[in-house]
């Protein structure tokens, strides 16, 4: 186990190094002068020179890479061109809200996707299966930016069931001020027992979380269905049938747990993907997360900010994969033996 862990960590470190190098390369591909982008259209030559010096643009490329790595390690992720603040600070501000949104979305995706996938597997080849397959493929095929607009217009604006946008009702900052511990509003509201804030945040969370959940829910449903069907074809499932268990029991009590393993790896993959999908959703719902930050950065072509977001999401992805690999042992005892 220790050797496996060491190897896995070594692998992760290698990937992180590669990710940093690749991000660096991407940021250096920018045509034109990044200093101009920073100093602004009306900058004087002196300001430009200062900006060039500030970003070390006059150094050699290896020196720049080295400086880049050194800065990253010391927490300096560059300065955003459009907020003019350290990118690391911007990311730290935006990330908890993204975590909140994507966490809720993934929770919804699992809660919807697993039972629905199970339903399809149970009634394989019949009506419910076809229905689930159509819906799950639709969910992974729908362009989220379009879905976000549609859902907001219908459920928030026309029907008025949910708030149009935002993370919580702002008036609550005066009437029920929130004490922040984790910066994740739902969590803070829950642990401090701030019910008005909690209910407000939850109702604001529903629409964006469901939109972000569409893709992972579809994927999870498909994966659960496939994994359950595969697992149900294994000898141990036949054995369970031969022991007198019905099909539903075979699926839920015997096939489900081993089948969750690929589903769990999928969640790690989909976590990072959902953060990126959030780029297209958060802007529509005013969700103050990484996605809105990234969308603003893209609109203003803010390379350092985009590089920061890219790096952060890639690191998250590596981390999520690592965590899932280690957690797989909890779900599947076979994995522990590796």
């Amino acid at each position, binding site marked *: 186990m220790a050797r496996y862990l060491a190897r896995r960590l070594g692998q992760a470190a290698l990937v992180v190094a*590669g990710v940093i190098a690749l991000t660096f390369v991407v940021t250096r591909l920018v*045509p034109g002068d990044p200093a101009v982008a920073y100093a602004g259209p009306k900058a004087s030559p002196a300001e430009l020179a200062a900006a060039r010096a500030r970003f070390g643009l006059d150094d050699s490329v290896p020196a720049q890479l080295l400086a880049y790595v050194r800065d990253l390690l010391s927490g300096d992720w560059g300065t955003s061109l459009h907020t003019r603040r350290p990118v690391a600070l911007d990311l730290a501000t935006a990330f908890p809200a993204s975590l909140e949104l994507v966490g809720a979305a993934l929770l919804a995706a699992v809660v919807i996707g697993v039972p629905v996938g199970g339903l399809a597997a149970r009634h394989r080849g019949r009506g419910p299966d076809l229905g689930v397959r159509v819906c799950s493929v639709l969910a992974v095929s729908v362009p989220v930016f379009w879905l976000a607009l549609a859902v907001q217009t219908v459920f928030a604006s026309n029907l008025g069931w949910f708030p149009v946008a935002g993370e919580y009702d702002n008036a609550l900052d005066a009437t029920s001020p929130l004490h922040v511990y984790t910066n994740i509003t739902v969590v803070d509201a829950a642990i401090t027992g701030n019910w008005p804030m909690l209910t407000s945040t939850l109702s604001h969370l529903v629409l964006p979380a469901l939109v972000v959940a569409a893709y992972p829910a579809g994927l999870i449903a498909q994966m659960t269905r496939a994994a359950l069907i595969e697992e149900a074809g294994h000898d141990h499932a036949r054995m369970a049938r031969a022991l007198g268990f019905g099909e539903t029991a075979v699926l839920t009590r015997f096939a489900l747990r081993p089948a969750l393993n690929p589903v769990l790896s999928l969640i790690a993959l989909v976590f990072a993907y959902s953060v990126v999908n959030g*780029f297209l959703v958060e802007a529509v719902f005013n969700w103050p997360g990484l996605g809105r930050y990234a969308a603003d950065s893209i609109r203003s072509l803010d390379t350092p900010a985009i590089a920061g977001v890219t790096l952060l*999401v890639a690191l998250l992805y590596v981390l999520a994969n690592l965590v899932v690999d280690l957690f797989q042992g909890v779900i599947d005892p076979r994995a522990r033996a590796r």
Partner: protein
Amino acid sequence: MTTLALRRTPLRRLGDLARADVLAAVGLVVLVLIVLAALLAPWIAPYPDDGGAATHPAEALLPPGGDHWFGTDQVGRDVLSRVLFGARTSLFIAAAVLVVAAVAGVALGVVAGYAGGWARDVIMRITDVFLAFPALLLSLALAVVLQPSVTTVVVAIAVTWWPWYARLTASVAASVGRRGYIDAARCLGVPAPLIIVRHVLPNSLTPVLVQLSLDGGGVILTAAALSYLGLGAHEPTAEWGLMVEQGQTLFTTDWWVVTFPGLAILVTAFAFNVLGEGLRASLDPHRRPR
């Protein structure tokens, strides 16, 4: 167990698939229709000029009706015509990305899987790095720093997509390479390129094909998202993501401008995905439900 002899030609398989899996058959038919629409756009579009540089500001934002089934956009172009022409752009992007990614990925994968050793390690670690980025993210970062164009979209997406093919081929190549007859062939002095062409590539073909059809939908969606963010195709090119972007502020007032291209993306991605799923279920022995 009920294993069947699987000596069928790919075409027969497609036929079997259509019978066995109605959904995949629907996907196939829809996809064929979309390809036809793309190829025939200049002839079947009601206003072929609107797919290109023409504009009619006086007829802007007419709702769907007899003259314009899908209405007109901000500069008076027929939305139906642009959706049809958009199919060309989207399918071109998808095809180009998949060809580039598959060729590069398969080549590297074969080398990695067949040669093994350090070559495999290096190539696999590189794919690890690329796979650490969600596809849309890396494409997005690349597209931001490059100039927006259809070519940029192709490059940006292909760069993020090839590792899948490399991994897929590497694992097939590695398993083929371990088979006895390959060892025998190698001992007999059959040159490596010949072994690769005769044995490794044909064995990789099926999983690669399945992956290609599965990826079609993902590429279309990613390309649309890039164009939506203003990083892809630009005027006067008709492209679905771009059309949604240009029409998105009109969603509550002139719904047709954004709804039809959005539906086009949805339908195409859906067709690719159901076809891919069906192919995977029927062609990929590892995933065949038993």
